[in-house]
């Protein structure tokens, strides 16, 4: 069955309140147009899973009061410095934070991908990350001798949401080398994707494209959103809009400034610059 094509508004209407929503890092394909639409629809109580880090996407959702739990290895605005709403609101306890580390998030998604209950992972023992994660366990390597190893329960997101360069008419989605998106799509119950453009030919018929393509089996729905990652960049397509991101960081230093940013750039739909 082909994945249906929806408008951006109808795509985000498929994301209920209270679910675990997995989103990719800034270097991958972040569905920013969809995120703004999601905030306009007033989404609440998300368990936001950053795979494995996030930037302005987590910032907007946290600042808009849409997140009740955040799981991430880091939230940062990169060279622009700290993420202002994350930094301010985490201290107020406005949302619960599950501090993680990048490979733990990747590995726990791989467990879900394989239909396994957990995944073992090296490292972590002796860290306060592990100390503050009662959902993680340390067990003996059953094949070793006095070799403790951390076990991570599978992470099975309700929905994975990301932005990709291409989808064909059947809803196969081309991600190229950004294969964390493939893992996310395999692991999540449902995957919603925005794309730069529709590709008229069958992506799976072209051997050069097929290995970088998520088959529509894993795709719940697709919406066309040109420049849908803006103000973040999309590899091979466009650079991040550094000026706009800097404008955001300045605005979001205060709650009032963030509200003004939201009113001006998120709550009113406008075409990407």
């Amino acid at each position: 069955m082909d994945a249906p094509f929806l408008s951006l508004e109808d795509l985000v209407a498929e994301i209920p309140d209270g679910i675990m929503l997995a989103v990719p890092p800034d270097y991958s394909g972040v569905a920013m147009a969809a995120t703004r639409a999601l905030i306009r629809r007033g989404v609440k109580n998300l368990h936001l899973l950053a795979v494995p880090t996030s930037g302005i996407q987590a910032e907007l959702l946290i600042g808009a009061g849409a997140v009740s739990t955040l799981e991430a290895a880091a939230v940062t605005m990169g060279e622009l410095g700290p993420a202002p709403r994350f930094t301010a609101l985490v201290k107020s306890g406005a949302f619960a934070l599950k501090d993680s580390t990048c490979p733990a998030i990747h590995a726990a998604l791989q467990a879900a991908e394989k239909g396994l209950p957990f995944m073992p992972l090296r490292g972590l023992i002796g860290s306060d990350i592990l100390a503050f994660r009662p959902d993680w366990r340390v067990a003996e390597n059953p094949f070793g001798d006095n070799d403790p190893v951390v076990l991570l329960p599978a992470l099975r997101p309700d929905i994975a949401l990301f932005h990709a360069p291409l989808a064909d008419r059947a809803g196969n989605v081309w991600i190229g080398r950004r294969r964390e998106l493939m893992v996310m799509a395999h692991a999540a119950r449902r995957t919603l994707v925005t794309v730069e453009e529709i590709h008229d030919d069958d992506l799976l018929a072209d051997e050069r494209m097929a290995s970088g393509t998520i088959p529509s089996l894993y795709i719940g729905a697709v919406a066309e959103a040109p420049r849908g990652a803006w103000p973040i960049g999309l590899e091979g397509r466009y650079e991040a809009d550094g000026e706009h991101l800097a404008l955001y960081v300045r605005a979001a230093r205060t709650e009032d400034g963030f509200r003004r940013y939201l009113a001006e750039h998120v709550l009113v739909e406008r075409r990407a610059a």
Partner: protein
Amino acid sequence: MAEFSHTELLVGAVARMLEGLRHVAVGASSPIQGAAALLARALSGGRMRVSVLGSRTNNFFTDGGRELFDCAAQGRIDAFFLGGGQIDGQGNINLVGIGPYPKLDVRWPGSFGSAYLYFLVPRVILFREEHSVRTLVPKVDFISAPGTSAANIYRPGGPYALLTGKALFLFDRALRRFRLESVHPFSSVEDVAANTGFEYDRAPDIGPTPGPPAEWLALLRGRVRDEIAETYPQFAATALSAP
């Protein structure tokens, strides 16, 4: 002796620690470390591989975000760089914040991959330009990744050195302590002592951190500057030009 900037001194000091390695990986927001790795690669005559996160031309990974970590777990990465808002004398690093967790007084971005890579990459070089009692503390408030582990913990990796804006320390894994090796120009042994919040040992022959030789400076201001500009254009334009 060639004239060099403070940044070029730091780049040279890092590059010197990468000599002879097969594969060096560089994480996010690390222009000095990235330039050092690319300089070391230029000096290796093409024998060294370098992966720079955020680069398109100097990053060959094709299997998504997990590949760096899987690669490290297999022993395919020889050196990596970590930092921290706080670093203590046992090599513990804190990338999470100051105060009692989770209601911290100051919150930083988070631990990234440190809680894993610190265990698995043989030569982890800690870099923190700010050398003060605020950053180099007796005990970190939160352990993102521990400097050392019990004997039964699988740990081929760990801290190798700590480079700051004032000095270079090497880490002794048996003693679980840093040892001051050299002091940068414009600092002194006394200045380092006054600004280090943890106890450390002193090498018998603490000298000045050597600057990059003329041949290195030429590479740094030419080829390496062009290579790092793709990922860190501001840094390349301002920090890597002849004084």
